[in-house]
């Protein structure tokens, strides 16, 4: 068994879901996503046992493109994140009715397929194909099942689509240039390339444009808040929980090792950009009226910190970034789900229109509070482990980076608690608010359990990702 199994499961799942009809679709999709989760856990076991689960087959001879899937610790960690979040996301949508559900769930699985492929691909072009494939389902999900005015939604989604696509084209150009140099798209060959500083700078920038838009790093973030707001919550979860991580993962996997000289040379600029994102995102989040938009900006702040950690080029920074990616993936999915739960009952996303939920549904409030606290990186949640490591690595580069990046601790608490206060506390809103249902509760508990467990015992993840990050660092520091 190798890693392609999980891709096959997801792809077949997507088709089976589509053909299973509207009524069964959600259950079939959940089944397949769980199968993928099981499969990824089995693969993780095999990997830990030292088994080789990578795949390399030649695919197209001219130009030389291979079907290469490389599963190292980093890739597997991200695959696990995807595989764990997909069932949660699918399950969280059980309370909603979607028209044409078969297509909806099929697209979700297809997107999981593409994203998993992106995390595993070890061939530049294959990676690019998966990267772009992931864009297609989310485009339709946001466009067809989104909310709000159809015209505005179309505008936001098309902007997102073209924006990310345009960024990716630069990446494709970079890959083609690399191919002319290396004669192969295989990642090992690209790692071995000895490019001049100037070439590296251009390649670095081309990659950066693609990733900065995807992650997003300011000032390339303008698509984010609108799309998060307009997309259905499932789409938002997929976008923020997993798809953002594609960009961050790619920074570690492709950008830094291929253009290490440029990365080292201009490190400070990119760290500063990431940190600017932290501060900017936090400040903008303070005065958002829409719950989903607020969460979008908080996401901007958090990924800014992750990106800054990645660009420190230290083991701590990389490790912290990966842990924070995973933690953020879970927490943001949980928070968006909470927004969805509120929307199911109140039919609004306006923060001002909410309030007093705590009196009526203590369970939901507790879960929401835990997620909020995880999001502001309270110690004993996994987010703290990640954020601490990232901030520590930043402090090793320059103490000011740590101080400025650390403002997320203050500002994050400010906007999250402010939001919590207005959404949950205060006088009881006249609308009744039923407490979480069993289905909703299961999703929340799963997320919270992951966050708390790894918050106290992050060692499994550290052990999983450290060797591959060390390899990447070796490539970065080869000359």
């Amino acid at each position, binding site marked *: 068994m190798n890693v392609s199994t999980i891709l096959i499961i997801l792809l077949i799942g997507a088709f089976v879901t589509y053909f299973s009809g509207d009524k069964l679709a959600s259950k079939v999709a959940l089944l397949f996503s769980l199968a993928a989760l099981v499969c990824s856990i089995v693969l993780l076991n095999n990997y830990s046992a030292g088994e080789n689960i990578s795949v390399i087959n030649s695919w197209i001879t001219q130009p030389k493109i291979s079907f290469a899937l490389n599963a190292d610790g980093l890739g597997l960690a991200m695959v696990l994140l995807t595989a764990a979040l997909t069932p949660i996301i699918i399950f969280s949508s059980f309370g909603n009715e979607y028209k044409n559900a078969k297509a909806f769930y099929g697209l979700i699985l297809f997107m999981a397929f593409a994203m998993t492929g992106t995390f595993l691909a070890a061939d530049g072009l294959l990676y690019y194909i998966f990267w772009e494939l992931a864009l297609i389902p989310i485009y339709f999900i946001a466009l067809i099942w989104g909310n709000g005015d159809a015209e505005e939604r179309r505008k936001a989604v098309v902007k997102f689509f073209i924006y990310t696509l345009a960024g990716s084209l630069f990446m494709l150009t970079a890959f083609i240039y690399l191919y002319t140099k290396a004669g192969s798209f295989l990642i090992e060959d690209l790692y071995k390339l000895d490019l001049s500083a100037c070439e590296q700078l251009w390649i670095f920038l081309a990659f950066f444009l693609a990733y900065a838009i995807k992650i997003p790093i300011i000032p390339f973030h*303008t698509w984010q808040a609108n799309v998060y707001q307009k997309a259905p919550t499932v789409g938002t979860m997929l976008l923020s929980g997993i798809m953002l991580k594609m960009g961050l993962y790619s920074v570690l996997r492709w950008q830094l090792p291929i253009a290490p000289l440029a990365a080292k040379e201009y490190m400070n600029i990119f760290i500063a950009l990431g940190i600017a994102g932290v501060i900017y995102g936090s400040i903008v989040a303070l005065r958002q009226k829409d719950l989903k938009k607020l969460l979008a900006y908080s996401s901007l702040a958090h990924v800014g910190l992750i990106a800054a950690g990645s660009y420190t080029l230290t083991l701590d920074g990389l490790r912290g970034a990966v842990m924070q990616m995973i933690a953020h993936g879970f927490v943001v999915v949980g928070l968006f789900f909470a927004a969805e739960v509120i929307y199911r009952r109140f039919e609004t996303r306006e923060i001002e229109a909410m309030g007093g939920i705590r009196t009526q549904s203590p369970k939901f409030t507790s879960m929401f509070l835990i997620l909020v606290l995880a999001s502001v990186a*309270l110690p004993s949640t996994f987010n703290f482990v990640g954020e601490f490591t990232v901030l520590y690595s930043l402090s090793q580069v320059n103490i000011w980076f740590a101080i400025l990046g650390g403002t997320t601790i*203050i500002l994050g608490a*400010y906007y999250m608690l402010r939001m919590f206060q207005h959404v*949950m*506390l205060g006088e009881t809103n006249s609308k009744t608010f039923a407490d979480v249902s069993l289905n909703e509760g299961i999703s929340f508990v799963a997320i919270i359990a992951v966050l708390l467990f790894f918050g*106290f015992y*992050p060692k499994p993840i550290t052990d999983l990702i450290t060797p591959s990050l060390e390899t990447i660092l070796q490539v970065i520091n080869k000359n």
Partner: protein
Amino acid sequence: MDTNLALILVLTPLLGFLVNVFFGKSLGKTVSGAIGTIAVAISFVVSLLLFNQITSTGKGIEVTLFDWIQISNLKINLGFLLDQLSVLWLLFVTGIGSLIHLYSISYMHDDENMHKFFSYLNLFVFFMITLVIGSNLLVLFIGWEGVGLCSYLLIGFWHKNQDYNDAAKKAFIMNRIGDLGLLIGMFIIGSMFSTLDYATLKTAIAGASNLDSSLLSLAALCLFIGACGKSAQIPLYTWLPDAMAGPTPVSALIHAATMVTAGIFMVTRLNFVFDLATDVQSVIAIIGAITSLVAATIGLVQNDIKKVLAYSTVSQLGLMFLALGFGAYEVAVFHVITHAFFKACLFLGSGSVIHGLHGEQDMRNMGGLRKVMPITFWTMLISSLAISGVPFFSGFFSKDEILLTAFHHSIPLYVVGSVASIMTAFYMFRLMFLTFFKEFRGTEEQKHHLHESGSLITIPLIILAILATFGGLISLPGHSWLNKYLAPLFTKATEGEHHLGTTEYTLMGVAVLGGLLGILIAYVKYFKQDNVPEADENITGLSKVLYNKYYVDEVYDAVFVAPVNSLSKFFRDYIETGLSALVFALGKIANEIAFQGKKLQTGSIGLYLFVFVLGLCAIVSYIFLAQ
């Protein structure tokens, strides 16, 4: 064995928390309260066992559970260190904690969310224990943030009132400002010494030959900022008075006795770092002195009974930092302990009063309660005497030690501290006279319902009053048990016991006289002349400034909060839309190019063909001729 003890110590409150969270509602109020109390009491018993063990062996216990966070040059364990300092802290945290839990069973009995209250209290105790017994700074940080969280939850316990929620939020965020400082301090220490573990750090610092003293000072300063946040020192003190929005037992436990002393704990814990940063030490001393004075002045005119106590707490914490600034850690610890006793007693007493008056907190509407609430009165009187520094009560010894230390190091700071003490005596007795003497000034209905609180409330009061009376015995001048007990912790030779000479006796006399003077003024003003503080709108002049807390909140609001908020609005309304427009502009440019390019398409086939031929010529001649 040690591991198990430590685990029982930590996990019982957590267990109590979990039980109360999941089953509290179905268990009923009394049971859930009992569970909460017993959980903390068990921890107290364990603490006693540990204390016994440590006093007999004289050695600390280290427990390592497992690796927690791995950072390249740091390996952070989830481990516990039970030594003299942490066990001492444990004793009064769990001891006073148990009493306050007991008190709360009665106090909170009318609240529908009582099980929640107890679960939060238990969670607080859990985090406080973690804070105290953590073997490294990061474990301390878990507790540090955790108690902040519990403080947030408990201040905003009556969550329907958004003002309370604002207070809770404010407390959390101000604490977080300090936490950032603490984190940065940790980063600097971590990168300097590659460890955050206390024991290793101590040896590393002792063994280090050429330390970058400015970097170390920076680290110490950052750590002190952390302490400022938690222990409500200038400039991060404004949250503590607001935190009185929480139920009174919370104010007693968290905002007087335990959590706010975490800063002092941390500084004492890292005494070896602060000893090397002498400039930071003077900063600490100055800030402590200023805080004590400022808070005391504000306390002079407050009319809310809990606010008076809150400013008194800030002031007393300032005195403790004053001691810390002089390197007199054991003195600060001594005052922490005595303060915990009498301040907890005062708060619980005020709680009893508030309970008796059904929520009335304004002293202008009290008075004459001496007869109806004798136990409350006597216990509070004892505690007030203790805090005022009347001889032979616990506060006398500890405060005197602080002032003595200050006198030896810096006369101006000594003066500041003394003035603050005199003011303390004044406002405490102002509180006593307004609350318990003369006639009752409340409504008839309140008067009708006046009664002494139940035994669950009075027993803790009595115990605490006894402790407040005799607590000073642990560190009598000249024969300090506490100094001996804590001695292994400190690298520098301690100030030692002050030699009791003429200076010392004079100073003591001055302090006592000052205290009595404060009491006398209060007596004259509020008993003899029968003054009652004016209504809010009639307050003028200096009192108005004091009454409005020097407008610090307003200043902070104008200087920090409002700019951030308007910046946020500006970003949201202009920068965001601007950036968005910029991206759209790219699309618009493409559109415009297309629109202009459209004009080239005249539709005239003749022109197309002509251009086509020209193009053909160009291509052919390029291929064949231009080689």
